[in-house]
Structures are given as structure tokens and as C-alpha cells.
């Protein structure tokens, strides 16, 4: 909880920074604040209300989220004067953190909103047609989904069993799994890349955390979720085949990975450690890809522009390759073990269908990743 307080403080400072006129320090303040927040997650002084409870698991989630955001922020080279945006980012992060720790359904709803609403705005800060379109889509679809989720909550209170299903659907929307993934590619592609990175790492993981925590309240949607998850793996893998936009490409790979994670979520609390590990490894991979590569200044979103990158800038190319290979699940990189866990767990439960589809999907997606990597080695047509 202290972390949330720290974050809130930093957010407010950032918010008013321009007025106070110490804008040029802000970057350091925010970065430092994030680190302090991360440190604060270790401080023993915790208090639980009936609204939230930072138990062991949610603390791990929190550290993951704050840590990833901190690294992302520190690697971000897009110098821009608008520190309100950083403030919004931090508020959104607060929402994400709260999502991992809610113990009352109202808190879940609020967390989602706190997380989403700043992002509606941030998506549009690119001020291009794409950016605004992304913002609009995110806003309309997002609020629509929120309304459905709320409706579910309401029905739940009215003791109508279908309510929890609607809540799950609302969460699936935030996670971005098929068939509620339609917004993901468009929004990721349209938004400025620093926010895309934030969404594809922090928001996705927070949503996963929220989903698992919600199901932990005692709702049983295993078969449904597993079905959704397997379809997501396939869709994500196949649709990434023909993408020319890097952000969109990452969106689809994220959808596939979300599928893998949702399998673990659906299996239940018994595999929570595996879920955390997978989330961490996924976050790490995307962090490397985005942070060490995507956030570099001279990068425009076009994959074709990456031709021969390996021969131009070895450093970022190698980082990108490593991240990609990890996401692809090539041993000995961590991604392999994550996927391996999913396969092993689902085979253990006799879900041979899932295993088969998962193997096919990861075959395709491995191919997709390596095809992407191969681009880095092809000399551009002079």
C-alpha cells in the first residue's frame, strides 16, 4: 500500500510540475519515485481494508509491475516536456497495482477504471490520425466493456449467476484474448510506442493478475477460459505472420502469450507460481524488445526499415534478437521454460488437445519470430 501512496505522491508532483516550473528535474523525480515505490513494496508496514489486501501474491505482482514500469521509464528516450503524461502513466500504474490487490468487487471496478481512463488519453497523445483513432477506439470499446463488466457486477449482486460470467468477459477484454482482442492491435499500433510498451507489459499483466484473483474468489470458468486461451494462441501466432507494423506485430505476439497465460489462470491457483514465472518472463522479453530497441529514438514503426539492422547497429539488434528468441521460447532462454511449464501442466491435466494446439501455435510463432529476425540480416536493396 505504501507503494501506492508513493506513486500517488509522485503522480501529483508530476501533475503540478509544469505549474511549479521545475519541469527539467521531473524526469529524475519520476524515475526516482518509481524506484522508491518499488522499494516501498518491501516495507513491512501494510494495512488491509475490506477493499484491498496486499497479500504475498499481489505483492509479487506489484513488484513486477512497478519494476517493469521503472525500467521502461528509464530506458525511454522520447524526451518531451509534457510531464502530465508521466503523471497519467503513474496513475494508470496505480490502477494496475490496485487490480492485483483488490479484495472487494468495487475495488476491482475502480482499479480497472483508474488504469484505463488515463490510457484513453495517453493513446491519443500522438496527435496523428492513427493516434486519435486508437484513442477513440480504445475509449469507446473500453467503456463499453466496462459497462458490461458493471452490468455483470450488478447482476451478481442481484444473485443472478450469469453475472460473474460478464465480469470474466470484461476482464478478458482488458487482457485482450480472443474474441475480445479486436481492440488490441489497433490501439497498440496507433498509440505512441512508449504507451504501447506500457500497455503490452503492465496493463496486460495487471489484467491477468486481476482475472486470476477474481477467479480465486471461487468462480469456475476453466473450460471456457481454456477454450478462449487456445484460440488466442492460434490467432495471435497466425495473424503475426503478415504484419508490417512493429507495434501491431508485438500486439499479436502479446495476444498469443496472453493465451498461454490464461491457460495457467484457468488451471487455477495450484499453478500460480508457474503463472507468475510466465508473466515475469513474458514481461522481461517484451521489456528487452521494447526498452532496448523499440524506444530508441530513430525507430519508426516499419519492420521493413529494419533490414540489415544487424550490420548497422549490432547492439540493439542483438538485444532485439535475444528478446525475440526468449519470447519465441527457444532454449536456453527463459521463454522456453515458461512455455514448457504451460505444456507440462496442461498435459498433466490430460488436456492433450491444448498441448497439440499449443505446440502447433508455438511452432508457427517461433517461425514468425525467426522470420522477423531474419529481416535484420537481409541487406536492404540499395
Amino acid at each position, binding site marked *: 500500500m505504501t507503494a501506492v501512496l508513493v506513486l500517488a505522491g509522485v503522480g501529483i508532483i508530476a501533475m503540478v510540475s509544469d505549474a511549479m516550473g521545475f519541469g527539467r528535474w521531473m524526469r529524475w523525480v519520476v524515475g526516482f519515485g518509481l524506484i522508491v515505490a518499488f522499494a516501498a513494496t518491501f516495507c513491512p508496514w501494510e494495512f488491509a481494508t475490506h477493499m484491498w489486501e496486499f497479500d504475498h501474491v499481489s505483492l509479487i505482482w506489484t513488484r513486477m509491475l512497478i519494476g517493469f514500469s521503472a525500467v521502461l521509464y528509464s530506458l525511454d528516450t522520447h524526451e518531451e516536456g509534457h510531464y502530465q503524461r508521466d503523471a497519467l502513466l503513474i496513475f494508470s500504474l496505480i490502477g494496475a497495482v490496485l487490480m492485483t490487490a483488490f479484495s472487494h468487487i468495487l475495488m476491482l471496478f475502480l482499479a480497472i477504471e483508474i488504469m484505463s481512463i488515463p490510457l484513453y488519453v495517453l493513446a491519443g497523445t500522438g496527435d496523428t490520425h492513427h493516434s486519435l483513432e486508437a484513442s477513440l477506439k480504445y475509449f469507446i470499446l473500453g467503456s463499453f466493456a466496462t459497462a458490461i463488466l458493471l452490468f455483470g457486477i450488478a447482476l451478481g449482486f442481484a444473485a443472478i449467476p450469469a453475472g460473474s*460470467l*460478464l465480469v470474466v468477459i470484461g476482464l478478458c477484454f482488458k487482457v485482450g484474448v480472443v*474474441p475480445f482482442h479486436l481492440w488490441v492491435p*489497433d490501439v497498440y499500433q496507433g498509440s505512441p510506442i512508449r504507451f504501447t510498451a506500457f500497455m503490452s507489459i503492465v496493463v496486460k499483466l495487471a489484467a491477468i493478475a486481476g482475472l486470476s484473483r477474481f477467479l480465486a474468489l471461487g468462480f469456475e470458468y*476453466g473450460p*471456457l477460459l481454456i477454450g478462449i486461451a487456445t484460440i488466442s494462441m492460434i*490467432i495471435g501466432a497466425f*495473424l503475426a505472420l503478415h504484419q508490417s507494423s512493429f507495434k501491431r506485430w508485438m500486439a499479436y505476439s502479446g495476444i498469443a502469450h496472453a493465451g498461454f497465460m490464461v491457460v495457467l489462470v484457468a488451471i487455477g491457483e495450484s499453478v500460480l507460481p508457474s503463472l507468475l514465472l510466465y508473466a515475469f518472463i513474458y514481461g522481461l522479453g517484451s521489456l528487452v524488445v521494447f526498452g532496448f530497441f523499440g524506444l530508441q529514438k530513430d525507430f519508426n514503426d516499419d519492420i521493413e526499415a529494419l533490414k540489415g539492422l544487424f550490420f548497422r547497429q549490432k547492439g540493439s539488434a542483438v538485444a532485439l534478437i535475444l528478446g525475440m528468441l526468449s519470447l519465441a521460447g527457444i532454449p536456453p532462454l527463459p521463454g522456453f521454460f515458461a512455455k514448457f511449464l504451460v505444456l507440462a501442466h496442461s498435459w498433466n491435466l490430460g488436456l492433450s488437445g491444448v498441448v497439440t494446439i499449443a505446440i502447433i501455435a508455438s511452432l508457427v510463432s517461433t517461425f514468425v519470430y525467426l522470420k522477423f529476425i531474419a529481416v535484420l540480416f537481409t541487406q536492404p536493396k540499395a
Partner: protein
Amino acid sequence: MIKKHWAGIVASLVVFLLFLTSLAAFNRVHTTGAFEVPLLNWFAVSGMSVTWGLLFDSLSTLMFTMITGVAFLIHVYSIGYMADDDNRARFFWYLNLFVFFMVILVLSDNFLGMFVGWEGVGLCSYLLIGFWSNNRSYLTAAKKAFVMNRIGDLGFILGLLVMFLTFGSVQFSEVFSLVQQVPANDIALILITFLLFVGVTGKSAQLPLFTWLPDAMAGPTPVSALIHAATMVTAGIYMIARSSALYELAPQVLTIVMWVGVATAVVGAVIALRQSDIKKVLAYSTVSQLGFMVASLGAGATFPALFHMVTHAFFKALLFLGAGSVIHGMGGEQDMYKMGGLKRDMPLTFSVFLVGALALSGCPPFSGFFSKDAILLAVHHASPIAFYTLIGVSILTAIYVARMVFLVFFGSQRSDTHAHESPAVMTVPLVVLAVLAAGAGFYHPELELIMLGGTVILLALIWGLTYPRYAVKAVDDRCDQFLSFDLVYHALIVTPILASGRLIHSFFDRDIIDNTAGGFGELISGLGQSLRSLHSGSIGFYLWMITAYVAVFLIGFSIWPF
């Protein structure tokens, strides 16, 4: 002089030393009996082991002596014959290598060691046939020789496999002692002997694998004399003689062997009648004579075969070297119809060649008469039909020999190249060989007056009849493609294989496998492409989709609660 010929001289000396060794071994074997010299434990795998040693007994030492003797003479001869070739040194080291492998072949004390020599001499034959490598057709001939020999070798090695499975060893001593326990007509035994004989048909140019031998004449003439007349091609004879213990227990195979031999003798002789190239004539005659030996082996008579092998080694080497000297004199000309009347220009060559010719056509008292006589007798015991066939073959032999002699040495000169007698370094070996060819028969003289008289009269008749046709008029009845098995083999075997190769390559590999594999790729990427239409980009559509799915889930939930 020395400087120019050092390679040849060294090589000849080496072989001469080997020859002395062979004499010593020969002597020791005939005084104190057979003895062995172990070399190394080659390899041992799960129970079965192959040790490698040299075995000196009467058979191997006989071969050893003959090979090194003839080889020495031919080495000396080659010094003169190859005098102007830039690659002499290489030539001589190939020759030495050949002698080495040949010795390995005859002295090894196990079949696997014999196989090593067996393939080794094949290799040297390849190298020497293709010695003049700037001529592509020579290379092709060399390749043909090697591959066809390999076909035979496959039979050999399969035979060895069966031998291993049956006796668990390939050592002569063990196999020949174990074979006594095996009942006659045992299937394994039949298989072994037959497969080994397949090897023989390759190496000793029997039907159906003999066609490489005539092409092998592409090599320098001394090579033809040494490898393709005197020594290598007789390896098969040696092998059957060596494993006669096995063959005796497989009479059916023996019959096959005999008839293959007879057929080969006939085919060789018939084809020889129509050749225009002097070396080709000799080559086919070699095929035919080898047929004689094999037939005799098939008749179960080992000694006559070996006897004929030795005499044949002498007179055929003599004939080849004589032909070589003729070719040398004619400046590389091999077509008999461009020669003629050479007996004036090269009297010495003519006389020794005549000796060889008479020996080949089996005229008493030359060696050929006695050995052929012995073979005929042996075959007569086995099968009269084969006997009369071989008599006919001998007559054909006499005819083509006469034709060759008359065309080359008699009549008028038919080309303007002025032939000259060869240098002493070439003629001396010729004389030595001539003496051997003439006298070797008395090693084992069994005179039968009927045979003697019959042969003399017959030969006189033949020579008288053919003289006007070839010596006076030199009728051109050449037909080099006469009875060509090559055309058949090409049509039936070579072309189909190559064609199927192209077919598989283009059809199975490209069309079937690649398209199947590629098909999956297409499928995947097509799927990826088509799924993209799901993301139409229109907000309205997305809203509809979400609502629809929510509805679907709700309905599904109400029907069947998860």
C-alpha cells in the same frame, strides 16, 4: 640416360627384388612346405575378429612368382615404351602399386584380405586405364571398368557376409576346415560359392560383366599386357582355385561356372573375328581364353586351369608387348588395316609375335597346346557338349590369330608411316617371354598323338585357307560393333538408371515432397492472410462482434453452465 629413366629403373629393381623373394618362397615351400607370416589383428567386433597374415603355399607362391616375373619383364619393357611420356614417374608408381595389391591378393590368408587386394588392383586398373587423362573417353573407359568391377565386388562381399554368418570367420584355414562339417548342397554354401563367382565374372571378365575389358585397352599397352592379360584378370581363377574346397561341395554352382566359361569363350572368340583394332582382338581373345580357364575350373579341374593361366600369362603378355612394339613402331597406329608387311621392317618383333600367336592358337610344341589340351581333356570328362564347343572355339581362335598375323605382318604396306624396330630395352623382354611362351609347356607334357596330329593338320588347314584372304587381299571385314553387349547394357541398365534419377529428382523431390512441405507453408500463411480480414478496423464491427460473443456466451452459459 639414368637420370631420365630413374623412376622406371627403381621400379623395375623393386619388382625384381620381389621376384627373387618369390623364388625364395617358392623354393622354401617346395622343400619345407607351406608357412604363414602374421601381419596384424585388423579388427574385432562382438565375437568376430579378422586377423591378417600372409600365407605361402604352392598355389600362392606359384601366383606370386608368375606375377612378379611377368611384372618385372613388363616394367623393363615399359622403360622403353614410356620413354617419351612426361608422367613416367607416376606411371611406374601406379605399376608398383598394382604389383603390391596383386601380391596382397594372392598372399592374404583370409578372404577379406584377398578382397582388399581385389579392390586394390581394380583401383590401379582404373588409374592406369585413365592414365592419359586428357582424353575424356579414356576416363570413361576407366570409370566403366571400375564400376563394373564393383558390381562383381558386390557379389564377392555379399558372399563374404554369408560366409561370416555361416562359419563366423573368413580365414582360409578355419573356413576350409569348418566346411567339412557342412553337408553337400547346403544352401548357404551354394549361396557363398555363387556370390563369389559373381565376383569372378567381374574381375575375370566373364559373361555378363566382360565388356569392360575391351574398353580397358585405352590404357598404355604394357598395362594391357600386365593387368588385363597376365595377372589381374586371372585373380578370379586364383580365387576359385583357392576356394575349390567350397566349390567341390556345390556341384550345381560348378556346372554354372563351367557353362558361363564356355559361353564366354565362344562370345569372346566370335567377337574377336571381326575386330580391326589389334589390341581389341587380343582383348577379346583374352576374354575367350579366360573362358577356357573358368570352364576348366567348372569342370572341377583346377590344375589345367592354373597351367593354362601361366602359359596364357606368358604368351598373351608376349602378344600384347609385341603389339605394343608394333604400335610403337607405327607411331601409335592400332588399326590392323593400316599396317601390313611389317615382317620386313620389324623382323624381331615379327618372330616373337609369331611364337606368341602359335602358342595362342595351340600349335604344338608351344606351351598353349599343352595347357589347352589339358583343359579340353578335363572338360571332356565333365561334359562332351562343352568339349566340342571348346574345340570349335579353338578353331575360331586359330582363325582370328591367323587373320591378325596376316593383316599385320604380311601383304603390302597399307600406310605411309615408316615402321622401325623397337629399342633393345623393349625387345629383350619380348625374347625372354617368347622363350617362356614356347617352352613353358614342357613343365607338364602329356602327349596324345591324336590330339597332336589333329591339331597340326587343322592349323595347317586354317592358315592355308586364311592366307589368301587376309595376307594377299587383306579383305576388310571389320565390324567393331559386332555382337556388342554394350549397346544392350546401355539400353537396359544405364539409361534407365539415369532416367529414373532425373525423374525422381524432378518428380518426387520437387513436385511431391517440396510441394507437400511448401503446401503446409502456403496453408499457414494463407490462413494468416485470411484471418486478417477479421480486423476490419471499423469500430461498429468490433462492437457488434463483442456483443455477439457476449450473447453467445450468455446463451451457452444458460444452456450448459460451465
